[in-house]
Structures are given as C-alpha cells and as structure tokens.
C-alpha cells in the first residue's frame, strides 16, 4: 500500500515540476521579448497616439511619454511586416528628436537622452504596486497629491505617471489597503507594497441585494476572505469555512470523502424544520457553491437586520458567496496544486483474538476460537490521498473583464473503496455594453463522483452492517476468508458480513452534476439610480447506482440486489431591483433599494431496482436482467416563491446610521389561509469614533455600536404538506401487486411558517491604529410557531398532524479579535473567534416531554434515547444514571430487566413514586423502571472557537489554525455496543478491566449474556476537543528570483491537517454526527451521537501556488 501512495506522490511531483519547467522556459523566452517580438502594422495617415495604442493592444509593450515633448497628434504612415519594435519606432519617429528607450516591455519616449529624464522638472514616475506578500495589485489608484493627475495600476500592478510637478507626493490607495503617500524626491521608480488596512474602514462586504462599506454596516456580518478558504485542501467551500467565522458552527456529519457538513448560524432555530442557512451565490439564492479557490469572500449574515431581506428563508442565517472576478489589465494566470497523504486520525483499541476468546467464554462457555487473529481496522484502513489542482485566468480590458477557472479534486479515502472526485469550471464575464448598461454572465459546472462505503448504518443487523460497524465488533479470531475461499460471516450473534467483504462486494456510486448560469444586467437609469435584473438557472442531477453482490448477506438472499436512482432538481430565479444611493448636503447619505423576485423549484426523482441476477458482474447496469424485478418509484415536487423586498439606509455625518429592511414573501408551500408573509427589521448604529470628543482619543481607532431587531422566517412546511391526500399503498392481492390507496394526510389550512424574532447588540472596537480589532455581539433569538407534529387520536386513522406550536430560544455571545501583534520584519497576525450559544426549548405542544429514539436499529433494547423538554436544549440525551458495578453483598435494586447480581450494571433509582393522582413525585420508589431515566447529556458546546496565527518572516510564512469545541457531550452508540459486554462481539480494551470475581475494583461490568444494551451515563462522553486543524509553512520565492523567472508569485508550502486533536473522547473522533445529516428534524434533534462513523483523517500536504 505505501508503495502505491509513494508512486502516486512522485507522479504528482513530476507533474508539478513539469508545470514549473514549462513556465520557466517561457519566462526565459520572454526576457528577450523586445528582440523577439515581431509586429505587423499598416496604418496610413494615422495619428502617432493611435499607432502607439495599436501597438499596445497587439503586443505587451506599453509606452510612457510626455505629451508636451512628443507630438502625439502628428500624422504618420507605418507599413511594417514582421518588424521588430525598434525598427517600427524608428520609422514612426524618423526625422524627429524623439528617441525611444526600450526596457523589456516598457518603452519610454522622450526628446532628450532618456537618462536625462531624471533631471527634468516634469518627470515620469513608474513602478509597481504589490501587497504585503509581494503579489501584484491591479487597480490601485495612484494620484499626485493635491491634483487630479493620476492613474490606476495595470493587471500586473505597474503604473506610470507623467507631468509630475516638483516636490510632488504620490498617494496610493486601494480598497481594503492602507493609503500610502510617498514623496518623490529624485526617484523615477517607486515600487511600493501596500499593507492591509486592518481598520477595515474601506472594506466592502456583500449584503443582500448590494454591498456596503463595512463602516456603514448596521448588522452583524462575519466575513471570510479567499486566503483563509484555500488554506488547506477541502472537498468544498463549506468545510473551508469551519472555525473561521464567529457564530458559525460547522461539523462534519461523517468523515467520508465528499461527505456533507452541518452548518449552524447562531444555533438551531428549529426543531422539526431545517435549521440550515441559505447560500446566496453572487445574488442567486440557493445557488451552488463553487470550489473554495474560485471564491473571493464569504459573508455570513447573522442578525435580523442583515437577514430579514431574505424574509421567509432568512431565519437560519444567510451565507453570501462572492466569486472571483477579473479586473482590467494583463491576463493573470494562477496555478495551484497540492497533494495530501491521509491517515485515519485514530484507531480504537480493540481486543485481540486471545483476549476476545477469553472474555467471550465467560458468558458463552461453548465458544470455540476460530484460530485467526485479525485486526479488522488494519484490514479496512489504507493511506488515503488528495490531489487538488486549479488553474485560473483573469483579466480584462476597458469594457470586459473575465475570470475563468478549472479545478480538479481527487480524493482516495482512508477506507478501502471510498473515493471522491470533482471537476469544475467557473466562468465570470462582465461587460460594459454601453456607458449605462453592464451585463454579466456567471457560469459554473461541476461533476462529482463519489464511491461510497457503508458507514453510520441505521441498522446494523445481519444484512445491514457497515464497514466500520463490522470492523469494530467482528470476532478478531476469524479470518477474512473461509477455507473454501468464500468470505467469513460472524460466527456468533448476528451473522454479519466481515468488513473486508463489505468493502469489496458492495457498490455505491454517486455521480452528481451541477450546472448553474446566472445572467445579470445593470442599467443606470439616471444618476444614482440603477436597475438590476438577474436570471439564474441551476440544476442538480444525481445518479446513484447501488449493488449488493451475492457474496454479501443482503445480496445473497436476493440473488444480487441492484438499484439505480436519480434526482433532478431545478431552481430558476429572477431578481429585479432598483437601487438609489445619494449624498446630499455632504452629510446625509441616503440609500433605497426595492425589488421583486420570483423563484421556482422543481424536484424530480425516479428509481428502479432488480434482483436475482445471473452474475454479479453486471452490477446495477442491467436491472432488466434480474429475474425478480423490484418496485420502481418516482415523484415530483414543485414549489414557487414570489417576493417584494425593500431596504432603506440613512446615514448622518458618518456617525449615525439607520437601516430598515422588509420582505413580503408568497410561497406555494404555505397553507391556503397563509400564502403571504411579512418580515421587517430595523437597525441603528453609532460610529462613536467619528464624534468630535473621540477625535483625540488616539488609542482607540474605531468604536461603533450596533443594535438591531427584526423578524425572519423559516418556510418549514414542505410542498403539499398542507393538503389532504390519499397515498399509494403497496398491496398484494392473489399474489400480485395491485393499485391501492389509503388516506394519508388531512388538510391543514392554517399551517404557517416559523418566525424568528432576533435582537442583536454589537460593538466594533479598534485599538492602536487598528492593530487590534475587536467585535462583540450579543443576540437573542426566539423562534415561535414551531412546526410540530401533534399527535392525533390514532383511531382517526391518522397519527399526527403538523401544528404551529412551540418555541425555541437561542442566545449567545460572539467575539472576534483580529490583531497585528507584530508588524516589523517578523510579522504576527492573529485571528481569534469564539462563540457561545445557548439553545433552550421554551414551549412544546401541551408542555409535554417528547421522547424519541436514535439508536441503531439492531440495538433493539435501547428504546427512547433523547428528549425534548421545556427548559432544556434540543437533543438532550436521556437515560439512566450509571452507578458502577454491583459488588457481592450490595443491595440489589429490583426492577424487571435490570441486573441484580455482583458484576452487573448498577443504575440509580431516582424516581417512580406516584402521588394520589398517579403523577410521579420525583422520589425514589425502590425499583428500577422507565421513570428512573433522566437527562444525562447535552450535545451543545458551551462555546466553540477558531484561532488562526500567521507568522511572516522574509519569504517564509507559517500559519497555525486551531479549532475546537468545549463542553459538548457525546452519546456514543459505538462504545455502547462494544462495551455493554452482553453480546458475543468484540470490545474495546476497556473490557480488559471488566468485573470478574478476582477483579472487583472496577466500573466495567462483567461479561454476561444476560445484559442488553441500555443508554446510561456510562456512554455519555465529554466531546470537548482542541484540534490543530492546519499547520502550514510556506516559502515565497523572493522577488528578484521571480523577476528573473518573470513570475508574479511562486509559493511552495507543506502543511498538516488534523495533526493533533486533544480530547477525552475514546471514539474515533469527537467531531461526529450520527443520524443528524440532511435538513429534516433529525438534523436538529440528533446531535452529538456517534455510531460507526467514517473517521476523520489527518493529512500531510505539499502544495504549490504560481501566478504568472
């Protein structure tokens, strides 16, 4: 195995070196650009200036000259065929005193000896502007202070200004950068590196239907920039966001390659509906996220002032994604590549064959050791690998700019047979069609291919065990194969397939195609007023093929079982809005925006399956060849949403800011009596630093107070959920399937959306000229009209009906600190964010507890495992309090099904006594029964945080990104199954300390066949962790070398992901989420559960960024 990985590694390295050489070769070729370049021109009677422009357009040359000295209006004739630039220039300026000095691509025209320019009073200054890391900055404004003379830098950051008066000072300014002034003195070349403006005053952030300067922001918005998103290879942008923004909690649902993530902005606002935020990609609500490399920034809108503009979809927060755009100037080519080698983060310590046999015999005396000694984890885990490549081209001319990118991500998982591959292309083209009309087209296409293995199985019985589930509990004394070459199945208990067989004989292939195009046109109606319209279409096509070969239990009983299923989701959206922004009397800033949007969704699905195949070789590609067809399925769901929205901003003197937002949403999902909903919000902000009395407080560079309140919604209701319906029911009559229906749902004309009212107070404070910036927010959200399935009398034929009953609260604090700790040669930048959210149920139907179960189906004795209770957080774990092991001589507490022997599990008797009305009193009744269960765990963290440190020294950069969560509990079904010690299955090495007559001083009970699994505090673990998510050491090729190579940038780095994790959790990984994926009720109610999850990986990465 390692050899294979190594060889792959070399392949990648070779590829990278090849690219490198390719560009180096090109670079050397261009050192002699002026000598090599041949131009063909034929212009008769043309002005000199036109000829020069033509040359600029057709080559990479650019001219610097003083119009007073060079007569640009003079008419000339040029007829050149494949001539060198020198030849052409001498032709143009024949018989004049103008001479040309060619410096690579730069040509200076002057009337005197060019070296004399230095002494001229009215001189030309040229140079290059870069950022602090040396990357060129296009579009920087360079102005001669106190004049209107100026220019902007080209695509490579070069500028040139002529006509510069004596003792002039140049001002360099760029959005997000500190303005710098340089007095010219005797210099002719001024190269300058601009520094990030960490006060952030000019930083522009995306908000709904527009952008705003950060200083004008009244809401709570967290912004994450491109460089953080690409710090290490991730399968998607959501993963890259983890730990970067306060108030945003991102957890992996499962560690499988390409697996989904759960995103919560300020906690889960719902219980039965989705708590997922919406994504808005370049204005397209519900748009598809491009790979992180193509994203310029992600803004998380958190408070109602920011989210209410998205109305009935804003309650869970909004994540605005802005993709990269091109800018005027020469084509910028960027190539990024990385290679990661991955290992499982951790292995469980399990018993070996001998230990297992000894233990099993204590409960099952007839057990016979099968003779092998297999470490099933070693069998299924492998060294995984990720390769990631991206190549982008961006640039633009006066009227067109473009950004084109292609990327490829290829991951081989750490479990045999699991893999993920993704190809994508992104194209952003913007055109100034006329002076007043801008049009743009944003196109994104992606194909992802996932080979899945079974993990986190819902039920791991005989035919359902997954790879991890089997690997950890399967008898270590069995081998992979029987003597006859067939796969072994478990000798005891459920005869599950062995883990290796599952990796080999189960096929699951998902091909996912996403296509999105978003057209926009913006028209400047009059000064300050513009109209923008967009039309976006996005489709998702998923095809899943699945096959169980006859060598697995499930396939065997069907004679091979194959299925193929597809979904096709289409989302079409049009936004149309007017924006008006003006400033009057120089202190009143006024903005208004209003518009209309219309969006439709169409989700189709279809599925076919078959069984009993002649051979396993056909997989799922010849279902018709199966002797026993299975039932096909198909479905269609459609929805539409029409909205009117508006925002008003007013700012006085940059001190007092007010914002109002409102959206009026009509949704087809809503019930007959509530088709339309209104969501308003308002916010105020006070830029206290701009007050006179703060002018002299120099230690404080920024001080802003913010407050907002508003309502947002959650559509919650699924399409058709408010209608009465009959449903098809599978029915057999006389051995044949017949058409049959049954009543399924009753009409619900009053069902409505969930509404979240949110209050937010925040402050943004900057110290020491912006070296330290602190943002803090307090918020409280109350979601009411929660959708609950209220039990109906079952004798009505219906079990339950959705009602708007219930309230949940989320409140918390968020802190963000960004600091330039050191700014000298050795730079240290620090970003820290910490969020604390308290989730609490305020109201439930009839105030009654709702118990529910989430245990794996094959652990049938578990019953209810969690509870919804007023005053407690959603997803509280519910079970018995474990009091250790009974010793002989103890008083055994009676109770049907509870052990009453030495070595048995001892639970605490806490309740059961009933008063005269049959109500529990909370007093112990001397017996163990269901009333002794209580809340034993809370899956919500006390707080979670991200901590990024970046150190820069000369050409080196080092960054350390730490991320963690504190105070959350995990209910581990994995350890519960392995450590109950009832069934003849393998255990962790905890079992070595099990109670035996000679080892009594222990908390681990004896092995006994009489014990069934029970949720107790024994299996609740502290899930806190601190994780070094990424350590990266980068080396930037120094500028002189880059110059020689004619590269903008060349950076090499090595990094490690998930290298260290500090946790007390004994499972694979504390970042777990069994049965909590998707966006339904379970994603809220099931948190902090672990069962047989695909472990996260730790990786070592080498990478390369090149910019040409």
């Amino acid at each position: 195995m390692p050899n294979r990985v190594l060889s792959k590694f070399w392949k990648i390295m070779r590829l990278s070196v090849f690219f490198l050489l390719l560009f180096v070769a090109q670079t050397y070729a261009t050192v002699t650009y002026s000598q090599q370049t041949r131009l063909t021109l034929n212009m008769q009677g043309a002005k000199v200036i036109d000829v020069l422009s033509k040359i600029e357009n057709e080559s990479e040359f650019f001219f610097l000259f003083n119009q007073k000295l060079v007569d640009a209006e003079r008419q000339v004739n040029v007829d050149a065929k494949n001539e060198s630039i020198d030849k052409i220039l001498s032709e143009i300026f024949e018989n004049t005193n103008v001479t040309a000095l060619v410096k690579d691509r730069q040509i200076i025209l002057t009337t005197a000896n060019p070296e004399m320019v230095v002494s001229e009073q009215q001189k030309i200054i040229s140079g290059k502007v870069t950022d602090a890391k040396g990357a060129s900055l296009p579009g920087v404004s360079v102005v001669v202070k106190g004049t209107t003379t100026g220019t902007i830098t080209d695509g490579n950051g070069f500028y040139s200004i002529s006509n510069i008066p004596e003792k002039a000072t140049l001002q360099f300014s760029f959005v997000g950068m500190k303005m710098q002034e340089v007095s010219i003195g005797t210099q002719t070349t001024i190269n300058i590196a601009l520094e990030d403006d960490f006060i952030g005053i000019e930083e522009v952030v995306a908000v709904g239907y527009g952008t705003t300067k950060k200083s004008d922001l009244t809401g709570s918005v967290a912004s994450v920039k491109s460089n953080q998103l690409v710090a290490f290879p991730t399968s998607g942008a959501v993963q890259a966001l983890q730990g970067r923004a306060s108030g945003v909690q991102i957890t992996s649902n499962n560690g499988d390659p390409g697996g989904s993530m759960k995103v919560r902005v300020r906690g889960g606002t719902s219980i039965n509906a989705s708590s997922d935020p919406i994504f808005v990609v370049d204005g397209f609500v519900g748009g598809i996220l491009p790979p992180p490399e193509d994203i310029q920034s992600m803004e998380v809108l958190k408070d109602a002032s920011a989210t209410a503009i998205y109305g009935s979809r804003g309650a869970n927060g909004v994540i605005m994604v802005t993709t990269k755009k091109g800018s005027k100037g020469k084509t910028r080519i960027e190539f990024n590549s990385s290679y990661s080698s991955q290992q499982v983060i951790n292995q469980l310590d399990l018993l070996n064959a001998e230990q297992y046999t000894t233990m099993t015999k204590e409960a099952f005396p007839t057990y016979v050791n099968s003779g092998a000694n297999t470490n099933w984890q070693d069998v299924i885990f492998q060294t995984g690998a990720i390769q990631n490549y991206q190549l982008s081209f961006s640039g633009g001319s006066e009227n067109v700019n473009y950004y084109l990118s292609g990327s490829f991500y290829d991951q081989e998982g750490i479990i045999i047979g699991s893999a993920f591959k993704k190809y994508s292309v992104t194209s952003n083209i913007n055109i100034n069609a006329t002076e007043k009309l801008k049009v743009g087209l944003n196109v994104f296409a992606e194909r992802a291919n996932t080979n899945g293995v079974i993990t986190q199985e819902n039920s791991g019985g005989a035919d359902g065990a997954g790879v991890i589930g089997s690997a950890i509990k399967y008898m270590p004394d069995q081998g992979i194969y029987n003597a006859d070459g067939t796969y072994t199945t478990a000798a005891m208990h459920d005869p599950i397939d062995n883990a290796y067989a599952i990796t080999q004989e189960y096929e699951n292939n998902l091909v996912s195609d996403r296509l999105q195009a978003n057209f926009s046109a913006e028209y400047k109606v009059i000064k300050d007023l513009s109209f923008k319209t967009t039309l976006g279409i996005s489709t998702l096509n998923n095809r899943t093929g699945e096959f169980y070969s006859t060598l697995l239990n499930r396939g065997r009983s069907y004679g091979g079982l194959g299925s193929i299923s597809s979904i096709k989701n289409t989302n079409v959206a049009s936004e149309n809005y007017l924006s008006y922004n003006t400033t009057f009397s120089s202190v009143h800033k006024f903005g208004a925006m209003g518009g209309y949007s219309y969006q439709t969704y169409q989700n189709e699905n279809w599925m076919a399956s078959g069984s009993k195949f002649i051979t396993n070789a056909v997989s799922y590609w010849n279902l018709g060849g199966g002797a026993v067809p299975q039932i096909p399925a198909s479905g269609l769901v459609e929805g539409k949403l029409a909205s009117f929205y508006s925002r008003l901003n007013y700012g006085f003197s940059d001190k007092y800011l007010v914002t109002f937002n409102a959206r009026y949403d009509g949704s087809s999902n809503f019930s007959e009596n509530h088709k339309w909903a209104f969501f308003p919000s308002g916010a105020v902000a006070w830029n206290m630093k701009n007050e006179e009395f703060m002018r002299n407080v120099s230690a404080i560079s920024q001080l802003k107070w913010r407050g907002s309140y508003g309502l947002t919604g959650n559509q919650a209701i699924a399409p058709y959920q408010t209608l009465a319906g009959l449903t098809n029911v599978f029915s057999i009559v006389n051995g044949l399937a017949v058409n049959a229906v049954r009543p399924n749902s009753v009409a619900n004309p009053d069902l409505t959306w969930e509404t979240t009212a949110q209050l937010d107070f925040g402050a943004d404070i900057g110290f020491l000229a912006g070296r330290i910036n602190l943002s803090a927010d307090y918020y409280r959200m109350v979601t009411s009209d929660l959708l609950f399935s209220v039990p109906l009398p079952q004798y009505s034929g219906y079990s339950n009906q959705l009602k708007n009953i219930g309230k949940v609260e989320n409140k918390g604090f968020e802190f963000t600190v960004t600091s330039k700790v050191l700014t000298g040669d050795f730079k240290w930048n620090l970003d820290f964010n910490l969020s604390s959210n308290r989730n609490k149920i305020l109201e439930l139907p009839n105030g009654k507890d709702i118990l529910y179960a989430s245990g794996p189906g094959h652990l049938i004795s578990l019953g209810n495992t969690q509870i919804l209770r007023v005053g407690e957080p959603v997803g509280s774990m519910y079970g018995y309090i474990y009091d250790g092991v009974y010793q002989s001589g103890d008083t055994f507490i009676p109770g049907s099904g509870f052990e009453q022997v030495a070595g048995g599990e001892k639970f605490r008797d806490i309740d059961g006594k009933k008063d005269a009305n049959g109500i529990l009193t909370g007093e112990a009744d001397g017996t163990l029964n269901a009333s002794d269960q209580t809340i034993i765990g809370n899956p919500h963290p006390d707080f979670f945080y991200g901590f990024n440190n970046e150190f820069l020294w000369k050409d080196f950069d080092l960054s350390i990104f730490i991320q963690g969560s504190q105070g959350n509990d995990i209910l581990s079904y994995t350890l519960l199954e392995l450590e109950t010690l009832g069934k003849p299955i393998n255990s962790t090495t905890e079992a070595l300390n099990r109670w035996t007559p000679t080892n009594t001083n222990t908390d681990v009970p004896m092995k006994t066949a009489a014990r069934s699994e029970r949720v107790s505090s024994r299996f609740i673990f502290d899930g806190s962790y601190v994780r070094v998510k990424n350590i990266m050491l980068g080396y930037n090729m120094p500028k002189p070398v880059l110059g020689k190579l004619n590269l903008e940038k060349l950076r090499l780095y090595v990094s490690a992901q998930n290298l260290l994790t500090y946790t007390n959790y004994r499972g694979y990984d504390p970042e777990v989420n069994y049965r909590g994926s998707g966006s339904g009720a379970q994603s809220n109610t099931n948190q902090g559960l672990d069962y047989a999850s695909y472990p996260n990986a730790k990786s070592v990465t080498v990478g390369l960024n090149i910019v040409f």
Partner: protein
Amino acid sequence: MKNIRIKMLTILLMAGAMSCTNMDEEPIGLLAPDTFFKTKQDVQTAIYGVNGALAHESLYGRAYICNMQLRDDMCDIGNRSTATYRIQVNDFGVNSTNQWMSQIWQQSYVAISCANTAEAGAKSLGLPEAEINPMIAEARFYRAFCYYNLVRIFGNLPYIDYPISDPESVKTLSKTLEADVYKAIVADLEFAKQWLPNKQTSDCRTRPSKGTAASYLASIYLTTKDYPKAYTEAKYVIDNKDIFGYQLEIDFQNIFRADKTSTLKEIIFAIDFIGAINQGSYNDDLIIPMTFPRDINAGFGVVVPSMKTYESFNDLDYRKKISFNLEVKDPKTGLMVPYDKWKEPRPHIAKWSRYPGNTGAGFRYSDHNYCDMRYAEVLLIAAEAKAEVSGTSAEAEGYVNLVRARARNDAGVVGTYPEDIAPGMDKTAFIDMVIEERRIELAFEWKRWYDIKRRNLGDVAFKGANSTEPHATFDATRDYLFPIPKTELDVNPNLNPQNTGY
C-alpha cells in the same frame, strides 16, 4: 433611442415579473380524497388499501401475530435479551406505553380508515345497489374484521365507521361499549354476507366472499357465547362448502407451504404477502426471523414454544411434525443443526419457516398468505357450538373426526393417530376436547389466546399444575384485556377509564 428602448424593457421586465403572484399548489401524483372517487375501480383501489394495511409489520407482518402468540401458553420468549415490550406481553407485564399495543391499535385504525373511505367513496358514486353493494360489502367486511381483532384485545373502544376529514371532530369521542361494537361488527358482516359473491374473482382467498363473512360471524358468535347463532353460521358454511369451494386439504403440511396456499380449498381468509419485495413497513413479513432459531440464517428466536408445549403434542401426531422444527439448515455451513445446539435449545415453530417460498434479506419476507380462517376451524366451531347448544352428538363428533382424519394422513401414508374421538362423551369433556383439538390443529395460528380468553382458562393455563408456560403474574381481572395506548388517553381523556389494572 437606445435608452428609451432599454427603459421600456426594464418596465416590461418588472411588470412581467410582478404578474407571477399566484401561489396555489398543483401537485402531480398527490391524490385528493374529494376528487378521487369517479369509478368503481377507484372504490376497489381504496378497498385494496385495506389489504395493504393488514399486510403491515404492525399487524400480520409481525406485531399482531407475535403478540397473540407470546400472550398464549404455547409460545414463550426465546431470546430474553429481546426488546422489553415483547417480554412484557409474554410475562403479563404490559403497560400502556407498550409499543406493540400502540402499533396494533394504530395500524388497525389505518385499515379501518381505508375501509371507511372506500365505503363512503362507493356510496358517493350513486350507482344502483346491485352494482355497488358488493363493493360496500367488501369494505364493511374489512371494517368488521379489524374491529373484531381490536375489540377482543382492548374491549370498549372508540368506534368509527365514517371517513374523517377533520381529526379535531373526533377528539372528544367516548368509548363504545364492547357489546355495541360487536353489534356493529355483526351488522357489517350480515351486510357482507348478503352482498358478497359466493366466490371472489379467480377464487381469491385473500378477499372476502359470502362464506368468509359467515365464517367470521360463526367465530364472533362463539366469542360472544351466542352458541346457537355460532352453530347456525358454521353450519351454513359447511352446508354450502361446495358453493363456496371449501374443503379440508388432504395433507396438513400443504396448508403451510407458501407455494400452495393460494390454491388451497381449505383457506377461507388469508392475508397476502409476497416474498423478497417490500415498501417500508408494508408487505414486511418478519414472522420467520421472529420464530426461527436465533443467529441461524438471521433468526431472532423470540417467539419460541416452551418445551412443555412441545411435549404436550403426541409424538404420533403428524401435526407435531409439521408444527415444530427439530433441526434446521445453517446456510453458512450447509449442515443441519439440531435444536439442542441452538441458542434457545428447544424445538421452534416450523409452520412458517419450512416452506416460506421466496424470502428476502435476512430471512425476512416470504410468500406466505397468513391464514386467519380455514375450513378446519369452521368445523371445530360447529362442533363446539353444537355441543354447547345440544350436548354431544354424532354431528358434532363428526366435525372433529373430519379434522382428525385429515391429521392421520402423513404425507400420503395414513396412520392411526389421532384416533376418532370416543363417541358419547360428556358435554364438558367434549367441549374441553374440542378446545384441545383447536390447540393442536391451530397451533401457532394466533387463535389460542382468544380461546383462553373466551373460555376464561387463564388461571389454569398459566397457574395450573399442567401449565405449559407458567406465569405467576397472570391476573385474570387485568390480563384478558390489554391497556389502551397511553398516547390515546393523553390526546382524548374522554377515553378514560383505562382498562382495569393498568
């Protein structure tokens, strides 16, 4: 010019967009009950909903069948580490949150709502009686069938015979007394008997016919101890057996062969399952794993006869051979494994696992049609009712002897056991003999518990000296009825009081 054009376009765009504000839903594939019933075929489609609803994991796929068997004195819990709610049923420790109770209750009412919807749909068509009444009769048979099971399990219960469009309207309903429920059941079955055909299309036995309705009437009257009527109905079925196409199957084994059941003349009513296909909990058949030796071919070994039950069968009785597995094949090794090597080392039920037809994954699913009423039972009802009415008679003896004669046919070899009954038995002894004959003949066919209940045999069966499955916890004042699910009492307190003892 250009600007004007663009401005016009802008206005048009805005106006066009604004016009789309109709938010009505037009679902495709969702059937609205108000507009569904247009033809007789639609009514039949709704009636077939009941067939599907019965072949559900909560009823004949597992919960109902297993619940009834664990409750009786024949099947004990095999695997005692199984779910508590199963042990509670077996050990008389049921409480009102028992999962099986809720499942049976809920799913039976789902089936009833199908029947009610179908009946109302049929009436809405406005067709002549002769055309539509057979369909109404079929719907009403199913409703009666479901309530018959429910009333025996729960006693007084909410009785609903109309479709419900607003569940709020029934939230305050009170319970209907057991006797009145029986009256309604009888009325439905009388209607069914009047209007159902003598034979269903293709002689299908998983849909009711006139004979089915009469057979269940006989069973109901036996339960309500209206013996003359029980006798009349049973006699009616026996007299018309040729018209209805009923007769005893020659070989007892064939009744439990999945490949044969659909063609057998003995079957009067069965619940139809098909192997290796399922749709969630529908057509989900777990009877085999529940009754199969644990850990062999995915058996759970939960519903397992007690050793004394096995011993209570005469070794010479062919039915013992058919009813019990003494060894089964382990598919992993291909070898036969005798019962003393099983997890629960005692013989397990064979009736369902020996010839299951096409099973699916994990030995789940089968082609069985689980027979709820067969001709042999009608004969035994006739014998018992006749004896109750007029004491032992040649006629009554004859019915039992028919059943015994068939049992002597050991796959074509006619044996000597069980002998014909001795003529002229004392009435009580005769009736006891019939009950015992039912125990053997209908073993593991979820009838025994109802016999114990209607004959008040609990104290003998669970506490008597010869108990095959002793349970000291049995309480005759409580355990003949199960508790009404607590969730129902919570939603509608008018359903109180809870059944005695819960």
